[in-house]
């Protein structure tokens, strides 16, 4: 396959940045999208040019590091797939592919396609955990959990924190991420003691980080490589309403 890539190049956080066109020839349809970028980078290095910086780690769709806006689609055209698991057979020979970083004020560009997603860590730090040390995994039957709750919690827990929901959202909102990280705990017994302080803390951290507000536009779920459902945000909303109605929260000592 012969492709034309238009890639966002930005030398550093202060650089203005621009789209630069690169022709890439002899791309195998069996390459992953990131392998195709590796091929481009090898050629750029041989030619003495600066390679394109992009985030990646596991390359098997579970770490959440890679994240590219490919032709205006977060993680590319294939649903439920991270950019690293996307194969070039999804594209046609001779196609022009636009590659951009996630665009959000909470995700400042570090270089080229690499953004700082530390804002997501701030949301987690504001309550996306339980404070009690629980040791190793307990005997599964010792704490009964309703099957539906276990399934929904597992669905939320599949979030890899890649930031595609923010990138796809017309409001630049991180509500799907926040809701997933929140409800994986609020659906389980271990998450109950801090349930209502957690939701206030995480939503406040989300808003402080400069993310937009959710308007239920529904762009996030189709972009999510793990398919976190939109109704997860409804669970967050319900917890938030209950938490604000209850007042200070229910955590002893807080």
């Amino acid at each position, binding site marked *: 396959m012969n492709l034309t890539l*238009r890639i*966002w190049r930005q030398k550093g956080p202060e650089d203005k940045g621009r*789209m630069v066109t690169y022709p890439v020839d002899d791309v195998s349809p069996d390459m992953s999208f990131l392998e195709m970028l590796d091929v481009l980078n090898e050629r750029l290095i041989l030619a003495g040019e600066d390679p394109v910086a992009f985030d990646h780690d596991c390359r098997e769709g579970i770490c959440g590091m890679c994240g590219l*806006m490919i*032709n*205006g*689609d977060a993680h590319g055209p294939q649903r439920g797939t991270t950019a690293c698991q996307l194969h070039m057979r999804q594209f046609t020979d001779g196609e022009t592919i*636009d590659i*951009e970083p996630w*665009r*959000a*004020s*909470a995700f400042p560009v570090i270089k080229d396609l690499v953004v700082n997603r530390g804002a997501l860590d701030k949301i987690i730090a504001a309550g996306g955990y339980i404070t009690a040390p629980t040791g190793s995994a307990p005997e599964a039957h010792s704490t009964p959990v309703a099957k539906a709750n276990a399934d929904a919690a597992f669905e939320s827990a599949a979030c890899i924190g890649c930031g595609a929901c923010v990138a796809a959202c*017309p*409001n*630049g*909102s991180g509500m799907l991420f926040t809701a997933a990280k929140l409800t994986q705990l609020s659906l389980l017994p271990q998450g109950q003691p801090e349930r209502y302080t957690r939701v206030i803390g995480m939503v406040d951290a989300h808003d402080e980080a*400069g*993310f*937009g*507000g959710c*308007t*239920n*536009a*529904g*762009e996030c779920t*189709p*972009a999510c490589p793990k398919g976190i*459902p*939109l*109704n997860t*945000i*409804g*669970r967050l*909303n*319900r917890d938030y*309403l209950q938490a604000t109605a209850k007042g200070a929260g229910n955590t002893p000592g807080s």
Partner: protein
Amino acid sequence: MAVTGILLALFLIAHMLGNLKVFTGETSFDHYAHWLRDIGKPLLPGVWFLWILRTVLVVAVVAHIVAATVLARRARAARPVKYAHRKKINGSYAARTMRWGGVIILLFVIYHLLDLTTGTLNPVGNESKPYGNVVADFAPERWYVTLFYTLAIVAVGFHLRHGAFSAFRSLGQQTPRGERRARTAALVFAVLLCAGYLVVPFAVLTGLVS
């Protein structure tokens, strides 16, 4: 957004039911219109109830607009650099047009008040004869008025389709099954309301009401 939106949607239902009284004849419709001014009369003097209702509605409209503006400003600040290549958005047309749709509805409401409340832009504008005002408004030779009303009502329908679902979600609708129900309910509500509103101008246009 959700709470003020629900208040306004409740008003829309009441307003639509009132409009449909046009089919019961001139006397009945005018009687209804005059009764609106006298609700709560033994308890409250004159048009007090009407003004209380109007105040609640204005507060709801203003709060709705303020909340929408805050959301729009936050959205703008959250994405200072736009995408060079942005796909057509996956979500519904209704969800995409909430902001501009809302502006259009606001402009329509201002026109509508000048037309059928104050009578300034109405060809008859007789405050004591609301039935006559309505019939004169949607007369066949004023087809452009009917057209404008139709477009505005359809805009309201789209706004309600996403707005009603979104209100359920904001108030804690949380299951996938409930989401399907909420979306269906919002669609049915929007379609019924549109039909209820549009039947009046079209009845006048076709001569069913004269």
